[in-house]
């Protein structure tokens, strides 16, 4: 479902040199598979997620998602793939403050090709336990509730792959487990593959497959990234 090959990404330093951040010879995630990615801060985890999501363009290599070669697509093409095949959960939720919970979730299905399925937005919010908070704005919700809205939004477009970037980092331990359970349950129900970045061993041990960035990222092994 997701196949990375020889994926490389570097950044230009102010002095003009290039700093290699990613060098992933190979990574494969199957349909519906749930994978945890661990690694030290600054190791390139978020960069990897951004490259997979098409937000950032890799220097070289291949990213195939559902048999679509993302690296050959134009920016608009990558936007289309992101809108229709990917869900993204951020560490800081990134809900739009002026929008209600329902509108935030609907925003997740606005830019794809699918129909604007309001019933699905309602259903997702019910599934994450916020059926009674549809019209609340983020400021009127707790941190845990906000992340649940973010999870519902990430699934709104019926993605094939969900990228989660430390989704529980800003949440208290009780809510952390609820979010993890929620993500795993919903992804299982909808047969959505998940690549989750986390620092938490407690979270990681719940997954059958855990990848360490140090082992898949040659660039990390060879040079100390910034």
């Amino acid at each position, binding site marked *: 479902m997701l196949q990375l090959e020889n994926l490389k990404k570097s950044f230009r330093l102010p002095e003009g040199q290039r700093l290699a951040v990613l060098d992933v010879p190979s990574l494969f995630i199957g349909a519906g598979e749930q994978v945890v990615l661990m690694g030290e801060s600054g190791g390139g985890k978020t960069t990897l997620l951004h490259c997979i999501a098409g937000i950032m363009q890799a220097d070289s290599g291949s990213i195939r998602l559902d048999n679509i070669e993302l690296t050959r697509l134009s920016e608009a093409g990558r*936007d289309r793939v*992101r809108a229709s095949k990917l869900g993204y959960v951020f560490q800081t939720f990134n809900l739009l403050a002026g929008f209600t919970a329902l509108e935030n979730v609907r925003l997740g299905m606005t830019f794809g090709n699918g129909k604007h399925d309001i019933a699905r937005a309602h259903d997702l919010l019910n599934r994450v336990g916020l059926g009674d908070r549809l019209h609340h704005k983020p400021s009127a919700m707790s941190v845990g509730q906000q992340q649940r809205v973010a999870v519902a939004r990430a699934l709104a477009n019926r993605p094939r792959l969900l990228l989660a970037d430390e989704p529980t980092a800003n949440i208290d331990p009780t809510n952390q487990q609820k979010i993890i359970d929620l993500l795993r349950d919903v992804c299982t129900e909808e047969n959505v593959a998940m690549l989750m970045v986390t620092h938490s061993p407690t979270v990681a041990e719940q997954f059958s497959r855990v990848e360490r960035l140090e082992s898949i990222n040659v660039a990390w092994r060879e040079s100390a990234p910034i």
Partner: protein
Amino acid sequence: MNLLLIAWRNMQQRGLASVLTVVSMALGVALVVMVLSISWLVTESFDRNSNVGCNLIVGSKGSPLQLTLNTIYYLSRPIEVLPYEDYLEFLPGDERQAMIKKIGGKIWDPDKAGIHSTTMKGGFAIPVCLGDYYGQFRVVGTTSMFFEKLRYGNQSDIEYRFAEGRNFLDESPEHGFYEAVIGWQVAREMGKRVGDTFQLNHGDPEGEGHGQQFHIVGIVAPTGTPNDRAAFVNLEGFLLLDKHSRAFENPAIAGHALVDVQPDVPSTPKFAGRLPLGKRDLTAILLKPSSGFGAMRLEMAVNKSAHAMATSPIQQIAIMLDFFVRPVQYALLALTFLVCLVSAVSILVSIYNSMNERRRDIAVMRALGARRDIVMAVILLESLLIALLGGAAGWLMGHLAGFIASPLVEDRTGIRVGLLNATSSLELTLLPGIVVLATLAGIIPALVAYRTDVSKNLS
């Protein structure tokens, strides 16, 4: 969820700033609408007044515009006087003879027809004397024909009506030559009714009073013309007032062999007789020949005279509109468009200043799959929403202001301003104008949104 709702939510998110920007746009558009309404009002007013029911004004040689201004609008000072004998030249033989016999005095060829009578055939000539005041209002010495023959309105087809009383008589058994009819505004502002009297001030509003009382026998119903603000007195009474008779020989009639004609019909015994020919002068003559061609011939014929000229009031009013009024209207319009431009800049500043706060939101939308052109469109839509809301509010405010001021405007001009009738075709350019301004105002912030780096702005 459509882009319009996203733009609307963005506006709501910055509630106060958005409202202030909408208000700024509304004020700009309201100003444009008000200026357009005033322009309409001015043009409408001039149009109404230019159709005074006569084709030509004859007066002493001088400025045709001044002649029109003081004869039709009662503005400015009369140029000079015309000999009354000139008026007689527009009358057919029988009317001229009857008039000479009624008035009496010295005249040449009392039995001939007026030299312009053939061209005038079927039309009418109305003598007018100006120069006196009643309070701040101009007094017009004329004959009862003024209200019988003249018409007003855009098509010159509305007859004068009397809100109270009647037209004055040429010679009334009760008041002799001293009857008057006043415009409705004169009646209201001076607190006069039918049956009251007033006296004329000589030369200007503070001039010496003539002492002779004129009896108000009628109040003209509102017409929306300068006649609402004038007092009309019988020409015979006007001529009899002190200092109104010709003091010196008018050079225009010099060289004629004069015959002294005794008046046929004696005046009502209790009143003095008419001012005789040879002592009578006029300020102007309003002419309406039976055809437009006749008017052209008359204009040429009169203008050959050494002392008199004829001018078309419609032509003069058109010149005045084109040379004096329109440039002011355009200048005002240009100013108000500048105000709109400033409002558009305020939209730009308002949205641009908020771009830093909303970079994260833009990055989130992009991460959810929004293309660059989509986030650009959202910003442009927001700019458009602000401008259209402000434009709609301003359009309504502008017309509402006119509607609220309607009683005052009607008092002054006689023109009724409804909620929507004071519109100009230029208003049709408002919508595309606002759209263009909003697009221009939104384009810079929209480009900022377009260029927003997603990965840098996703926290």
